[in-house]
């Protein structure tokens, strides 16, 4: 699952064709949903599929179709080598960042944190037989009610703003 996700993400990054990039992004998101299921977060995985694949990618395809007519010609016109010199600073920066982060991840040894050991000892870990969706619903309406309301207001503001930005200009 991780290899599917990472391989398609690399393809998304290196391909020159925007359409192929968007469609490989589908595969990356499906792989991520699979990883969520492996982490026993089935509700989050379904939400990922519905919102990302159903919503965000369709929006991206729309934006691409509305803005992409002469982009396609540009992409066909300029065939660049695999890693061009212009991208070299980005490649170096990202590789250095990758090395630093991997070093940190290996040295921090996340499996031996105190709170994780404590939660294993208290049997507070998720089990495959557990009904997480019900638990999420109850927690969302009791413990996390304030962030829930805040995110709903934010979502409404964002959607109104998007509609306002993309409306037809009457005058000026």
């Amino acid at each position, binding site marked *: 699952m991780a290899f599917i996700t990472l391989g398609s993400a690399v393809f998304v990054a290196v391909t020159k064709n925007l359409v192929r990039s968007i469609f490989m992004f589908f595969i990356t998101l499906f792989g991520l949903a699979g990883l969520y299921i492996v982490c026993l977060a089935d509700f989050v995985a379904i939400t990922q599929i519905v*919102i990302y694949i159903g919503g965000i990618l369709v929006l991206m395809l729309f934006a691409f179709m509305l803005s992409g007519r002469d982009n396609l010609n540009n992409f066909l016109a300029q065939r660049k080598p695999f890693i061009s010199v212009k991208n070299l600073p980005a490649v170096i920066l990202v590789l250095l960042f990758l090395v630093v982060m991997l070093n940190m991840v290996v040295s921090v040894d996340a499996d031996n944190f105190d709170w994780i050991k404590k939660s294993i000892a208290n049997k507070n870990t998720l089990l495959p037989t557990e009904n997480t969706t019900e638990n999420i619903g109850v927690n969302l309406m009791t413990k996390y009610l304030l962030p829930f309301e805040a995110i709903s207001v934010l979502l409404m503001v964002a959607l109104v703003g998007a509609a306002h930005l993309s409306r037809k200009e009457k005058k000026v």
Partner: protein
Amino acid sequence: MISLTNYLIVSVALFCIGMYMVLSKHNAIQILIGIELMLNAANLNLVAFGKYDSANNAGQIFTLFTIVMAAATTAVALAIILNVYKQYKTIDPDKIDKLGD
């Protein structure tokens, strides 16, 4: 059982791929995809650690919040990209160098 370090490594790799896309692409939509990849890397960490919190589900619930935030971000960003395309007839951020009237 898959250890947490493996999830962290996958997430770091995803984050770096996203950062590479943000830094090197000449297309606003691809830069947006890079940002989404970075957000997804963060989500993967939240979900992986949320496995050890079955009473509160903090990791999973905040992942849901992050997904909603990503959707809102994408909607606004795509509206802005369409406006920019209408104005400049290009969506290469390097070529957008004139202020509007």
